């Protein structure tokens, strides 16, 4: 006997239901389960802008890494629709718990894109106030954030912030995770907790087909969305390159959560067009052919095709492009000006106070800084 070999990538694709509201050629259709008649051209134009700006943040940061300005960057290229569609379904009072790759969600939560750079430049660990944006810090420990989202959702229940039918008041949480993360014990436990307490949490899994080099098929024998049934809640599989579908499905799941209907698992089927990070070499584990096929499902091109057919003007597209250029320039400028961290200051963030023993260590660090400065002068 031998162990089953790693299944070929793609073995799970295609055979299962996938919610799609905008096909790759830009044709719109409706799904009675996820009504989106209220979504009009202006809103889709807004999302188009979000998608283009998200991509620009990503490609600009990638270039900054290549120029040595960032130590690392995990590209979101190809996953913009999943991030923008779900991110735009959130209300201000909802709370999102992201991973390191969810730049588009950060943007939707009002985090200034320049604030995404510090972690990867090595100047800081978290640059925004998670409470202010109701957007957590990027989680690098795979899966850990799903428990945090569930616990936050339990807090919403304890606070009675669910089930009033009041759109200003009812709240939910959303946890972002990857396909690889679904193998972590923390994620299984978060599913158990969420179901047990009927917590108002949406698990939004971007199935981008790979966990670094390991294909989806090593993590699961069934589509990820099917896992939810075993825990006792709904799982929905959605075209992750379709911003309309991602929005409609996430909006419905969040509303169910805010209404007291408990958790939902959304599997957004997408593809990581870039490397895992700038340190990765995908040619070692996947074919150019495969990547090329996914290119035809580009999340931005289909929205553009739809909008063009709907009569969006060339001026509109040009203005978005111009805005993206400005954003790119702003990112380049801001990156070089990110303040350098000061080790001495960091001692004050270890605890809420600075115990005398730690203060003594800080003084030691300060003395070394003074020496180094003298040495440099």
């Amino acid at each position, binding site marked *: 006997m*031998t*162990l089953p*070999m*790693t299944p070929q990538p793609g073995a799970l694709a295609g055979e299962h239901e996938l919610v799609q509201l905008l096909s790759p050629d830009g044709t719109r259709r409706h799904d009675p389960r996820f009504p989106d008649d209220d979504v009009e051209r202006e809103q889709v134009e807004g999302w188009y802008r979000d998608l283009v700006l998200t991509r620009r943040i990503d490609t600009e940061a990638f270039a900054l890494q290549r120029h040595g300005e960032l*130590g*690392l960057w995990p590209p979101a290229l190809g996953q913009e629709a999943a991030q923008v569609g779900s991110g735009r379904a959130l209300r201000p009072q909802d709370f999102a718990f992201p991973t*390191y790759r969810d730049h588009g969600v950060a943007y939707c939560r009002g985090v200034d894109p320049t604030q995404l750079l*510090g*972690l*990867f*430049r*090595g*100047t*800081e*660990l978290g640059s925004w106030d998670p409470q202010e944006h109701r957007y957590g810090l990027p989680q*690098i*420990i*795979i899966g850990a954030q799903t428990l945090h989202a569930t616990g936050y959702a339990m807090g919403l229940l304890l606070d009675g912030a669910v089930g009033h039918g009041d759109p200003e008041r009812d709240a939910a949480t959303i946890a972002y995770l990857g396909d*690889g*993360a679904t*193998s*972590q*014990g*923390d994620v299984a436990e978060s599913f158990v907790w969420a179901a047990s307490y009927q917590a108002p949490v949406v698990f939004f899994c971007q199935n981008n087909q790979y*966990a*670094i*080099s*390991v294909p989806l098929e*090593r*993590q699961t024998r069934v589509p990820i969305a099917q896992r939810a049934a075993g825990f006792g809640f709904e799982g929905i599989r959605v075209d992750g390159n379709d911003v309309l579908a991602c929005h409609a499905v996430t909006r419905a799941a969040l509303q169910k959560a805010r209404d007291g209907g408990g958790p939902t698992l959304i599997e957004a089927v997408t593809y990581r067009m870039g490397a895992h990070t700038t*340190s*990765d070499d995908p040619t*070692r*584990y996947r074919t150019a052919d495969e990547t090329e096929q996914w290119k035809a499902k580009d999340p931005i091109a289909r929205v553009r095709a739809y909008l063009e057919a709907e009569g969006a003007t060339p001026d509109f597209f040009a203005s978005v492009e111009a805005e993206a250029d400005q954003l790119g320039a702003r990112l380049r400028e801001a990156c070089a000006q990110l303040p*350098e*961290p*000061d*080790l001495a200051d*960091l*001692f004050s*963030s*270890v605890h809420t106070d600075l115990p005398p*023993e*730690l203060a003594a*260590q*800080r003084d*030691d*660090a300060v003395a*070394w*800084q003074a*020496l*180094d400065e003298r040495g440099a002068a």
Partner: protein
Amino acid sequence: MTTQTMSLGGAINAGLRAAMERDDRVVLMGEDIGRLGGVFRVTDALQKDFGENRVMDTPLGESGIVGTAVGLVTRGYRPVVEIQFDGFVYPAYDQLVSQVAKLHFRSAGRIRVPLVVRIPFGGGIGAVEHHSESPEAQFVMTAGLKVVSCATPHDAYWMIQEAIESDDPVIFMEPKRRYWEKGEVDTSDPGVDLWSSVVRRRGSDATLIAYGPMVRTCLDAATTAADEGIELEVIDLRSLSPLDLGPVFESVRRTGRAVVVHEAQRTLGLGAELSARISEECFYSLEAPVQRVTGYDMPYPPSRVENEFLPSVDRILDAVDTAKEF
């Protein structure tokens, strides 16, 4: 004598290969270790050459990796598992502390646990958070685990093989910032056994004690000190649990001064244990209290200041001065 030049990472790869050729019960498991060859390429080409049954790309879960390794051990295998980075070992902490460390003891010796857990550890490579940690003391203080760390390609090549041959579980700490450093490997003779410390440089004025990534830094400090006429002895502990302190005591009795260096945070790091043991054994020979040069008691900082956090040649020499002026 057959010597070859290898990088430290390449030497571990060669050592793994030799162990796998020798014993077909040796299997490798981890995230991205097969097709990709590991994020540091330490297992490069091993899956191609030994197949997917011997080199397994596992699902993404450290508790799963270590927990299933315990089952494989019970079935007579000798798993070598990779934890991708130091900061990702904690999901497996329960399996390591409650299961791996205790199985031999609980079974009154009936079940042996020939498991190796490879962990690239330490900072200095400009990485993002959770990728630069030094958790070794947490395993050293766990009774039932053995912990070693290599500092040279030669040791990397031999120590990984000896760890695999050990019937006890071994946490194998790999100094990731030294993966690319090259050195001579004598593939015919390990020289010393896995559990011994070695003197890397002779000196009479003070004893530097280190392991893993800090051995090179201490040797650099000794070179600088020598320019000023100060002769530092450098000891590479190699095994952190059990400790081989005979050479340390012998050295400190001669020099009268000891400086322990590690990247890990100061409080209850290895330096605490070493300081206690040296004080107990060398009390009357000590000219100064044992000095510790370590990371500060804060979570690993953003990488732009990691060089201020990590022990440097200057900080080591300053500690030597303090000991000399005491």
